[in-house]
């Protein structure tokens, strides 16, 4: 009894000490608590829905427990898709999202038998240690470019403006928005940190799924190795605390692969389709998985072809609503990647901008270069992967040659598909799980000392991969923990912040803002159109297609103010693949035209450096 009294006294002293030291300022604590609650609620609802879907099927057939991570991923994709009709109809009130979450959570009423993630204590400790900085990133105010123009901006705009973004004036919104609608639900409950914490949970789910699939389909240790390769790569780990649609797609791809290897072809189609609807760049690994399925059905060609067609149709059914939506809005189904009708041939992306060349020799050297020459801050792949991946490559190729590495085959197809496209490592992220598993399959082929050497290389390569990420997290950590003002971080890390702040504090309440050559849509507290995406496509398209009537077009859409960056391009970035004349026509001329038009038709009301706010006359 006296020990219990002692323990209670110690606990009380500890609590008093913690409170006295103001460990976490109240607003940071509240933000973290609300974000955590939002993420947990959405994760629970998604898992309930997924478990209901998977469990119903299982109950009718195999009676196996439902994998919790698979349920989370499938339920999340299903919920994100189910939110399309109401939001497209303008039903964007927070109550709609709450009702949707409750409806999804009703999947738990089917009382599914769950298989929760399990791993040895050491694996949990290692995984959490590698992922822990991502929690700080998730709690920090958003400064990542992709978050502030796209992944958090669209959910925030949806909730703020009451309409599903999309069309030529908001082209990002015309992509499939499966994760963004789920993030909007997380934002309703959890505020700004809700979606980011949800994605952190998703990243942890990806690591668990990779480990689990590796352990079951390769060997126990190979699962650990695959998870280490995944979490030891800069490009993967830097996304762990950010809202994104790459890692969710990667998780669905791994689950599709697992279903394929387990002979559950309809679940393969379901996960593959969900992955495609989450991120189009999952197409590479999805094709690899389908080819693997086809290869495993060799010898029974008569039934395979119709089944392949049916499975493909089942997968595409996930993407079809988004194509249909674009079609109903008069857009190309694949807009914004195609269908810039007023300027045929207008390029959404320049693949040559990334990587180190696209000649035959360059492509052959790609596996080497992508590890050796990549850098997080360089257009040479714009990222980094663990050097241990290269150590595993010979083994993977050896296994492939011997016909005993189906996972490495899918990884190879994924890599080839990526090599045919844009050589930015973040675009390979949807294949990250299968690439890690493919490398682990290669690791399995090595002798004991080779396996040890691969792990040593992983360990030595860890600082080069986690270092740049930790440096940026360290910069954001004080704001995440409430020790630095949110505005101070934003002023330091968001280039156009001062102009955004001016608009938020000084523009009339009914102002409507056009962002030209500028990114931070998320932080603007007024209705906004345009804003940047790859190479500032929307602004260039407006200025090239409308010419001198560009600002007139904005005024006709109710725009009252323009927030613009006056120097968005540097010729050196493009000179290797765009001639000077073309550069002037496609990049420099729109900027010059914007400046002339703003001078003639706008009144400068704020300027800081090369960013300004103009009131349209």
């Amino acid at each position, binding site marked *: 009894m006296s020990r219990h009294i002692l323990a209670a006294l110690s606990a009380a002293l500890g609590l008093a000490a913690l409170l006295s030291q103001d460990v976490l300022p109240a607003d940071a604590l509240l933000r973290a608590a609300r974000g955590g609650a939002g993420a947990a609620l959405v994760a629970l609802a998604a898992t309930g829905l997924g478990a209901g879907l998977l469990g119903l099927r299982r109950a009718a057939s195999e009676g196996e427990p439902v994998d919790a991570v698979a349920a989370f991923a499938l339920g999340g994709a299903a919920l994100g898709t189910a939110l399309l009709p109401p939001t497209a109809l303008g039903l964007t009130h927070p109550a709609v999202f709450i009702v949707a979450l409750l409806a999804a959570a009703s999947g738990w009423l089917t009382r599914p038998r769950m298989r929760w993630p399990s791993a040895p204590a050491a694996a949990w400790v290692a995984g959490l240690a590698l992922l822990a900085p991502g929690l700080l990133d998730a709690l920090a105010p958003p400064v990542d470019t992709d978050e502030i123009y796209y992944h958090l901006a669209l959910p925030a705009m949806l909730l703020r403006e009451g309409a599903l973004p999309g069309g030529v004036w908001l082209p990002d919104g015309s992509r499939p928005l499966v994760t963004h609608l789920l993030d909007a639900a997380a934002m309703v409950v959890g505020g700004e940190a809700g979606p980011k914490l949800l994605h952190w949970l998703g990243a942890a789910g990806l690591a668990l799924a990779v480990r689990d699939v590796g352990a079951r389909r390769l060997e126990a240790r190979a699962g650990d190795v695959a998870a280490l390769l995944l979490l030891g790569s800069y490009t993967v780990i830097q996304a762990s605390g950010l809202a994104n649609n790459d890692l969710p797609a990667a998780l669905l791809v791994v689950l599709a692969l697992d279903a394929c290897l387990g002979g559950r072809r309809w679940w393969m189609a379901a996960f593959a389709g969900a992955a495609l609807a989450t991120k189009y760049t999952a197409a590479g690994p999805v094709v690899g998985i389908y080819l693997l399925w086809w290869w495993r059905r060799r010898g029974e060609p008569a039934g395979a072809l119709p089944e392949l067609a049916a499975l493909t149709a089942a997968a595409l059914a996930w993407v079809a609503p988004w194509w249909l939506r674009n079609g109903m809005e008069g857009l190309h189904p694949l807009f914004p990647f195609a269908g810039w009708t007023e300027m045929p041939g207008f390029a959404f992306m320049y693949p040559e901008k990334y990587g180190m060349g696209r000649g035959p020799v360059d492509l052959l050297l790609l596996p080497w270069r992508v590890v050796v020459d990549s850098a997080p801050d360089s257009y040479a792949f714009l990222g980094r992967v663990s050097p241990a991946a290269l150590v595993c490559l010979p083994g993977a190729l050896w296994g492939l040659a011997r016909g005993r590495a189906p996972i490495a085959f899918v990884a190879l197809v994924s890599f080839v598909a990526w090599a045919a496209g844009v050589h930015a490592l973040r675009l390979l992220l949807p294949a990250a799980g299968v690439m890690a598993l493919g490398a682990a399959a290669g690791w399995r082929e090595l002798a004991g000392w080779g396996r040890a050497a691969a792990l040593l290389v992983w360990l030595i390569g860890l600082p080069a991969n986690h270092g740049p990420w930790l440096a940026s997290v360290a910069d954001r950590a004080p704001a995440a923990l409430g020790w630095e003002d949110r505005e101070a971080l934003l002023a330091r890390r968001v280039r156009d912040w001062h102009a955004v702040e001016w608009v938020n504090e*000084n523009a009339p309440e009914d102002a409507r803002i056009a962002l030209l050559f500028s990114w931070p849509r998320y932080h603007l507290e007024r209705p906004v159109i345009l804003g940047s995406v790859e190479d500032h496509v929307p602004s260039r398209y407006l200025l090239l297609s409308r010419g001198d009537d560009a600002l007139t077009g904005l005024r006709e859409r109710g725009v009252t103010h323009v927030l613009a960056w006056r120097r968005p391009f540097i010729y050196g970035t493009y000179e290797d693949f765009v001639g000077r004349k073309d550069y002037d026509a496609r990049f420099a001329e729109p900027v010059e035209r914007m400046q002339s038009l703003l001078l003639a038709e706008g009144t*400068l*009301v704020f300027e800081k450096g090369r960013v300004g706010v103009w009131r349209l006359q």
Partner: protein
Amino acid sequence: MEICDDQRYPALAGPWAVGCDATGAVRVAIHVETGERVTIAAGGAPALADGLVYAPGIPSRVWRLPAGKSTPEAAIPGELIGPPATDGEVVVVPLADGLVRQALGDNRRQAIPGEPAPWYPPAVTGEWTVWVSLERGEEVIEAHEQGAMTARRLDSHAENGGHPRHVAASEGWLGWIRDDEVVLWHPEDGERRIPTDAHTSRGLSMWGGVACWESWNGEDVDIACSDGVQIARSGHQRAPSRWGDWLLYVDDRDRVMIVEVAAP
């Protein structure tokens, strides 16, 4: 001399052209008559008066040209939201929570109630301080006379339209720009309105009762002054700054031009 990150500089501080080096920060002063060059470190957006450069900071610094060495002044007591202003005797600093007026060489400060708009500098001459504020996003010109309890509203978009903005002051005259005119106002001599299209202006330059601004001619930007001086060459002429017969401006090749002018 280069143009600056804040394109309201270079500008004239009496006979001194104060501008930037290649860093984009205000670091150079050149005498327009003798060509004497003085290196200063005035940072991003100093206040200028006849032969004087005031750089806000902790502490603030003052250069009395041609001396290249600065003297310390009282630190600014808050977050600066726009360039300060000086008439050579006092300095007015726009802060997030109001304006502060203090005599140079003196630590005493006076808080002026008001909510100055960011980016727009205030102006000061003698007893008068003038600034732009925003009400529901629309501009108001307010002025405060020493000793008065409250500021006086000189113009506002809500009452008169025209988005009044860009205040300036010199030798008892106050001035500001509206969409279709430049207004010069003197507490005793009354008001003068000059029709013009000055919408491209980043500011208004005043020397006594003479004002200069950017004038949009329908195709490009020229420079016009209230005493009839004009610079209307091909291409843009922007960012005028006037002192006596000297006019500084920037042409559309970003060259800093300093010319001697005479009123017609």
